[in-house]
């Protein structure tokens, strides 16, 4: 855990210095909301449509973060330096997934209010606590799968393509569960209770992929 925190702190410091990932993610999300605002030709949206727009936008913005996750490690020798150190290699998985989770959380702090302003019909306040729970579970899934896929993609020449090509299909179940869990929260007549079934599916999906990632991550870093 100490090693994971060391790598995570370094990653956050690098992002603070370079601002290469988060601004791009936020700009992408807000631009997408603006496009939806005009493209749907509706003053506001709610329910399942709103949930889908929010989920898909956050997912695609998240993919930008996934693609950038290991760039510094590959381009500046961070992988070799880490692999030379006498540390548990799973620490890299924890740190990178933690960094991506935090990037997604910051993205949502910016993007969700923007979504409320630009597109959402019902007020954002009442469903917000439940929305945070669903988005936290969704972020966990994207962070774990994104880290796994990014570690795989960064070893290839077509890394910018490989990330989305492998990552998006793997994320479809999480995407469906997230959108279906958020839909009732954004109803025109106020938020319905959290749909437990979809939350459970999302949580199970996160757990399974966290275990898979833990099991295979060492092999991805091996020569």
């Amino acid at each position, binding site marked *: 855990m100490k090693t994971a925190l060391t790598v995570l702190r370094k990653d956050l*410091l690098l992002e603070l*210095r370079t601002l290469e990932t988060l601004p791009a993610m936020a700009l992408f999300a807000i631009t997408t909301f603006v496009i939806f605002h005009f493209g749907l030709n509706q003053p506001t949206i709610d329910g399942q449509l709103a949930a889908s727009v929010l989920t898909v936008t956050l997912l695609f913005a998240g993919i930008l973060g996934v693609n950038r996750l290991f760039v*510094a490690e590959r381009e*500046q*020798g961070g992988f070799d330096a*880490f692999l030379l*150190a006498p540390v548990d290699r799973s620490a890299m998985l924890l740190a990178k997934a933690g960094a991506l989770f935090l990037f997604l959380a910051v993205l949502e702090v910016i993007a969700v209010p923007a979504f409320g302003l630009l597109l959402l019909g019902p007020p954002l306040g009442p469903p917000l606590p439940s929305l945070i729970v669903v988005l936290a579970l969704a972020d966990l899934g994207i962070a774990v799968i994104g880290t796994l896929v990014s570690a795989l993609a960064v070893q290839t020449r077509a890394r910018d393509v490989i990330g989305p090509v492998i990552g998006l299909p793997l994320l479809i179940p999480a995407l469906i569960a997230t959108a279906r869990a958020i839909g009732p929260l954004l109803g025109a007549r106020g938020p319905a209770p959290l749909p437990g079934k979809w939350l459970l599916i999302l949580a199970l999906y996160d757990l399974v992929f966290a275990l898979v990632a833990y099991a295979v991550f060492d092999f991805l870093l091996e020569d």
Partner: protein
Amino acid sequence: MLDTPAIELRGVARYFGERIALRDITLAVPAGATLAVLGRNGAGKSTLLRVLATLLRQHAGEVSLLGEPLPRRAFAVRGRLGLLAHEPLLYRDLSGRENLRYHARLYGVRPERVEELLRDVRMERRADEPVRLLSRGMVQRVAVCRAVLHDPEILLLDEARANLDPGASELVEPLVGRPAGRTRVITSHDPQAALAEADLALGLRDGRPTFSLPADEVTPDHVRDLYA
């Protein structure tokens, strides 16, 4: 010098697809000794260093470092190796001090060691500037600090003095030179300089050994043939 081999290779081979990067490499380096690996560009010198650094697995043969077989027991020797490669293995947007502190935490080294090393290579005044703003020589000095931060028993040096002026070379000598008393594997494009600080020499051509001799038995003809 002790008799126990710190590094042993027997029939080591490594391929990249169809291309032979290393083949039939057999040698033993006693603890505290220096092995100079010579050869033209692409001869396999850097690949050999990466195998010894546990970053590449050999495809055939046996590698043993400090009595531990690789790659099975690689985890047992990682903290006892230092690698100074072509790339400095430093984050360009972090300062030299931040990079070294990061590595110190990975290796469980006390932070004071970072300051000692920065003083040793006279980089303490520029240590808070991002690495991308430093000259190549300064980056190399910080990279030397990174390689020896954890006081490794084996030091793998790929062109260690590249980009260093004579003054800077002198500064890093106590850290990476013979006086440090470490077991070293060095590569250099200056064969005479490499042989002068080596006990053993390995000549590589297209990944295969052309000679493996005590350094003082390597003749100008050996060197000429190697680079011809």
